[in-house]
Every structure is written in structure tokens, then in C-alpha cells.
């Protein structure tokens, strides 16, 4: 150090400057490389997916092998139904658990639940599929939309719970106290005051959770299974966009590959819209919504 200070133009100085420059080059290069896959994937999705994107894709059933055309209408509807089912299970459990953690969870029970939620979030999605297969599909004797919804719902719970907890914690204590001081029950305070104030944040968490499960394929393999035809029934196998993309991608037909790309384009668009909407909902970090 001292030597370099005395002789700033010396060899050591040059070496230090060089190392510093290498850091800049390396870091910027790494950032650019990190951005390449995203750009490539988005480009390919648009280039390969756009040609087959037409009205028929959204309104028609898949055609049998050999016939050109057809769409993924049933898979799109199936994905929406599965998301709806997942929300029916995941939202009440996730939001209520989040409220529990933020309002009553500063104790041992809260700590244990928080830890187990992290554990549940890290269980591979395919294992969730096998779990739901054994508790829902085996007793019902066949694959079903209900099982798919339950599998996705279970995957939603930890995400929704942790975001709800974090957002509800941000609500100023003074707001709760003012409400309680008016003689309002804690029940009403939580639902009409605290949750309302945290509305935007909770919605963000929900949207992010939906974006996460919308593209899940692995848990659906053994639960919703897939279906070539229309089906809304809860106790029947149901098509889904990710599963349909999978079937088409590994099949040897060019026409199906084109449809798989279009399906992927639709799926990614849906997820990106949800992600951006989630970000938009909490632009100003946290604000009180009237």
C-alpha cells in the first residue's frame, strides 16, 4: 500500500488499476450474459409462437395427428379452472395464516409455522404431485381437476402466507389502536381496517403466487393428468396449458411443435402480465388505500 502511494506510477499501481478494471469488465460482462437467455427465450417465443397465434388457437380443440390447425381452447380453460380451484384452497389458508403470523405469531408457534412454510415451499413440485396423487387420486380412483387444483393450491399457501404477513406487518400500529379505541372488535379491526390498508400488498402477493403456479407442470402430471377434450367436471381429468405444451413438445410432429411454441407464448404472456401487474400494484411501496 505505502509503496504504491509513494510511487503512484509504479508497477504495483498499474497492476492494481488493472485488477480494478478487470472487475468492471468481468462484472458488466456477467450482467450482459445473464440477460442473454431471457432475451433469447423471449425472441424465440415471439418468432416461433406468433405465426400460429390466431383466433382458432383460443376457440378450437386440438386436432388429431395429421390434421392441420386446431387450438388449445380446452387447455386454456383448464388452466384457468385449475388456477381458480387452487385459489379456493390457497387464498383463505394463505391469507389467514399470514394474518395469524403478523398479528399473533410472535411466539414459538409462529416461528415453527414460519419455518415449516419455508420447508413446504422448498419441497420439489413433483413431490407435491405424488403426495396429492396418494391422498386424492388413489381414493377417487382416477385423475381429476380437483386433484390438480389441490396440488397447485398447496403450492400457493407458503407464498401467499409470507407476503401477507410481511405486508400486514407494515400497517402502522396507530391504525389498529385507533380502531380498537373506538370499541371495535379485533376481528373487525383486522378485516375492515388492517387488511383494507394492506390491500394492495396482499393483492401483489396473490398475483405473484398465481404467476408461480400458472406455469407448473410437474404437479399436474399425476393429478390433473390432461385431456384432449372439453371437461369442466371436478372429478374428471382436465387439460392444462403447460401439460399440453409438454405433450406437443416431445411429440415428433412439426405442426404440434408450432402449437407448443404458441402455447408457450400465451402462457408466458399470462405470467408476465401477472408479474408486472403485481409490481404495479405496490409501486409506492406501501400506501393506505381508502
Amino acid at each position, binding site marked *: 500500500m505505502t509503496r504504491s502511494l509513494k510511487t503512484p506510477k509504479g508497477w504495483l499501481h498499474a497492476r492494481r488499476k488493472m485488477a*480494478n478494471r*478487470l*472487475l468492471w469488465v468481468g*462484472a458488466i460482462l*456477467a*450482467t450482459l*450474459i*445473464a440477460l442473454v437467455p*431471457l432475451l433469447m*427465450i423471449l425472441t*424465440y417465443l415471439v418468432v416461433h409462437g406468433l405465426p400460429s397465434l390466431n383466433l382458432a388457437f383460443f376457440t378450437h380443440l386440438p386436432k388429431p395427428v395429421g390434421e392441420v390447425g386446431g387450438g388449445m381452447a380446452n387447455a386454456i380453460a383448464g388452466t384457468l379452472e385449475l388456477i381458480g380451484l387452487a385459489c379456493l384452497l390457497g387464498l383463505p*389458508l394463505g391469507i*389467514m*395464516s399470514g394474518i395469524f*403470523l403478523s398479528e*399473533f*405469531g*410472535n411466539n414459538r408457534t409462529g416461528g*415453527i*409455522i414460519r419455518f*415449516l*412454510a*419455508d*420447508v*413446504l415451499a*422448498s419441497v*420439489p*413440485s*413433483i*413431490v407435491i404431485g*405424488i*403426495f396429492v396423487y*396418494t*391422498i386424492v387420486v388413489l381414493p377417487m380412483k382416477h385423475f381429476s381437476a380437483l386433484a390438480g387444483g389441490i396440488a397447485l393450491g*398447496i403450492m400457493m*399457501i407458503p407464498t401467499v402466507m409470507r407476503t401477507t404477513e410481511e405486508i400486514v406487518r*407494515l400497517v*402502522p*400500529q396507530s391504525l*389498529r*389502536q385507533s380502531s*380498537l379505541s373506538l370499541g371495535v*372488535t*379485533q*376481528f373487525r379491526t383486522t378485516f375492515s381496517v388492517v387488511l383494507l390498508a394492506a390491500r394492495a400488498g396482499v393483492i401483489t402477493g396473490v398475483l405473484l403466487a398465481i404467476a*408461480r403456479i400458472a*406455469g407448473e*407442470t*410437474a404437479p399436474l402430471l399425476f393429478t390433473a*393428468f390432461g385431456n384432449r377434450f372439453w371437461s369442466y367436471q371436478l372429478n374428471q381429468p382436465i387439460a392444462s396449458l403447460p401439460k399440453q*405444451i*409438454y405433450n406437443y*413438445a416431445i411429440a415428433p410432429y412439426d405442426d404440434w411443435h408450432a402449437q*407448443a411454441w404458441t402455447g*408457450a407464448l400465451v*402462457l408466458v404472456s399470462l*405470467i*408476465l402480465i401477472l*408479474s408486472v401487474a403485481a409490481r404495479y400494484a405496490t409501486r409506492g411501496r*406501501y400506501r393506505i388505500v381508502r
Partner: protein
Amino acid sequence: MASIARSPRSLSRQGIWGSNFIDRIFRSSTLLLALSIPVLMIALLVILSVMSAPSIHYSGWRFLTASIWDAVHSHYGILFAIYGTLVSSLLALLFAIPISLGAAICLSELAPRWLRNPVSFLIELLAAVPSIVYGLWGIFVLVPFLRVVETWLGERLGYIPLFQGSVTGYGMLTAGMILAIMILPYITSVSREVLTAVPSEQREAAYALGATRWEALRGPVLRYARSGIMGAIILGLGRALGETMAVTMVIGNRAEISSSLFSPGYTLPSLLANEFVEASDHLQTASLVEAALILVVITLIINSIARLMIWKAVKAGQTEARA
């Protein structure tokens, strides 16, 4: 916002709220719903254990040490899948670590402030792309590309066992690269958070001594953030281990262990994805569930270590900043 009291509990104890009937119901019902998480977790472990009991009984330790998947003669040993899972994930780390750390350093230390959030958002978008889309992209873009690269490597470096064997484009190397892209956003965003949590005194002290940015980063900053960055890496590893669809689509799915990076392999999740629905008898199903149980145990251990390390690093940063 800093003055948020911890819990409304103290309030409710003093007032009449604690004795309120509705509130008591409210509180216990939230607790009841929150208990769904421990219940689910316990149920998952119990059911997996019970379902795999026939296999544990039948195959014993051979299940972990043998490398065979023969449904006709009922010989099951998943060493090949454990090997494939570990090798593909480690390859992914090998590719992803330098890029993620470089990007994290760029986004936390070097880039101008207005650029940081948009670029981080773009990198985090990678995490939003579903696994199936990575698989699709892998089959139609990465596999043909790697086929060319692998042929080239095989011709020039074919004397090294790593680069031997026939080239299809499907295999361990492809799986590792897809996984690397998929875990990149996780390692980058957590490392960036950890680096941002390093108190600025650490840097300023180094700059005051005449250190360049690189010297400040290498010494005081990285030493501070080391355990958090390790945590981020292990978290990425946990993600890679459980990844199913993209890997299944590009790894080639062959039940064997090969020293070559080009040859097809199998991972635990892809074994489950391919075989579970087709499992013909009770024992095969039980063997697959045992494989799932092993996968869960591995990811649980890896993730617990990761979370502990990140938690420690961020906490250390916070206490230091406060002091």
C-alpha cells in the same frame, strides 16, 4: 414506520378485547388455518414414508447403492438418478456462480443507481418463466446448438473421458446449462441483497485507506457477505435439485452412470416424471415414492443450510448497521 410495535397482543390483554368472544373465535380460527402448514408437512412425510415402506423393506440399502431400473425383474437401485441429480446440479452451479456473482456485484456496487432496479427486474423475470418453457426452448434451441459444440469438443478434446462418447445434444451438459439459466436469477437476487446489506462503513474504510473498488470488494465487503453468498448458492442448488420438467426434456433419460458429460442420464425428479404414471405394479410405485422421499430429504437438508446462512448474514449486517 420504524415505530411499529411488535404485536397487538399487549393491547388486547389490557382491554376488554381479550375477553371478547368473537375475537377469541377469530384468533383460534386463524391459528387453526395456520396449522394447516404443519399438518400438510407432517402428512407429506408420513404418507411418503408409508407408501415407500414395501420398497424399503424389499430393496433395503441396495436401493441406494445399486444402479439398475428393471421393472420386469423387479430390481430397483437409484444410484444413477442420485448421481445424475447431483452432477447436473453441480454443473449448473459451475456455470451459474461466476455469472450470478458478477451480475450481483455489478448491480449492487458498480452500476449507476437508475440502472439497478430495471436490470434486476429483467434478471428476476427469468425466474418467472415456467420450467416447461425452458424445456421447450432447450429441446429446439439449446440441444441443436450444443450438438454442434459437443461435436467440436469431442473432436478436439476427445481423449478426456469427460468429452467422449456419441453426441446427441441431449445429456448431462445440456441439463446443467438449462439448470444454470434457471437458478441464475435466484443466486443473483439473493447475493445482491446480501451485498447491499453490507454496511457502507466497510467499503468507506477501505476506500479511505486508498483501496480500489476491487480491493475493497475482495477484502472487507466479500468477507462480510461470504456466508450470505454461500447461502444464495446453496439455495440455488436446492432449486436445481428439485427441478423437473426442463431437465426431463433435455437430459435424455437413460438409467446409467457415465463419465462423459455428453451422455444421457437421469435425475430423481425426471425418473418420477417419466415412470410414476406408467408404474405397473405395487413395488415399482413404492420404489418411486421412496425415490421421492430421498429427494425431499436431500432438498430439505440443502435448503435448511441455505436459509440458516442467509439469515445469519443479513442479521449480522443489520446489527452491525445499527451499532
